[in-house]
């Protein structure tokens, strides 16, 4: 990352090679459309090149920063779609999160801890959290998808965040 700040193109290419597949996977999950996911990935990396100097290692890992840059763009792009129905997918792989958690890598361990805390939530609030974070759903979309009033969905998410924090930090 320091190389990228110095405008070292080889370092930038190496960063791309290392992180683009994971980021592309995240963008695809939110957008469910390859071309749009490619556009967002491209925009995100151009932004990373432009704003590399603003990366602050005190505030988290390079990957977390890259994900942030990418997710904001992917979510914006998703929200611009005209029809609500076009934005809702089937997301049957929500359950796949559980399978990934059994992975024994470090990252798998982090996911396992989060998964354990998610499991303590009730089913529908948990789905709301996962649909929002992993798939980029807005409150409105969550309400539609879960056939629940928007106010209820909002408080589900807030209560879930409080409980997740207690569980993860505790």
């Amino acid at each position, binding site marked *: 990352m320091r190389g990228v700040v110095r405008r070292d193109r080889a370092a930038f290419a190496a960063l791309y090679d290392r992180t683009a*597949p*994971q980021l592309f996977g995240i963008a695809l999950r939110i957008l469910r459309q390859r071309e749009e996911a490619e556009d967002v990935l*491209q925009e995100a990396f151009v932004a990373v*090149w432009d704003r590399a100097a603003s990366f602050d290692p005190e*505030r988290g890992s390079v990957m977390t920063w890259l994900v942030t840059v990418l997710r904001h763009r992917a979510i914006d792009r998703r929200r611009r779609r005209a029809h609500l129905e076009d934005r809702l997918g089937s997301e049957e792989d929500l359950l796949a999160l559980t399978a990934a958690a059994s992975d024994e890598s470090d990252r798998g361990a982090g*996911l396992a801890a*989060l998964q354990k805390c998610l499991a303590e939530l009730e089913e529908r609030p948990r789905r709301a959290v996962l649909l929002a*974070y992993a798939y980029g759903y807005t409150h409105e979309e969550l309400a539609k998808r879960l056939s629940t009033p928007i106010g209820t969905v909002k408080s589900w998410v807030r209560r879930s*965040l409080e409980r997740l924090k207690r569980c993860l930090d505790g």
Partner: protein
Amino acid sequence: MNYRDPKLRDLLAGEYAMGLLPSRTRARFERLMADDAELARLVADWRERLAPIDDSAPPVTPPRRTWRAVEQGTLQRSFPATPPAGLLQSLAFWRGFAGAAAAVAAVLVLYIALGPGPARAPTVVAVLADSSGTPAFIATRGERAEEVAVAPVRPQSLEAQKSFELWAIAGGPPKPLGLVSATPGKPLLVPASAVAATGTVLAVSLEPEGGSPTGQPTGPVLFQGKVLAN
């Protein structure tokens, strides 16, 4: 909204990290965060808590063209989309003259005119002319020294299913530099090191769509010009 209430701050930080804030609220929150290190810290903590969900997305290798687009997008930063108007007008004037001498003269005039100009003015690296000496493509150096932009000075006719490919020739076999557009406004950006040596010849050949399949020119060289001393 009361941004001082610690509980609300943490919840908003969480919702921001989730990506749930509506665009306007998000913009306001980002402005607050810029001056509020503690708020930024709350967001960072939430990101770390939620990041494992990102790891659960199966990685997918993006197509090669995405990286090429990133490269072009980042190189583009140091170049205007089209050569400045002055440059085009001068070239339009000189276009009237046939013969290689006219092209060389045009280059010299431009070079002198732009040489000691403001730092942002692009420097002409080479002018590529057709067989009659009419300038067709121009290579310029932008604000940043490490890249050179190559673009036609006006739309060039190009048959369907064909591409213009740019080559650098400096003693050895021609080195491919990429496909160059037939219309102005979308310059091909090449590393300055590829055209660094004075006397290197830049050439554009006519190739099948997508470029030469062999890595060497397969079609006629339509335009060429020498890299100028600088």
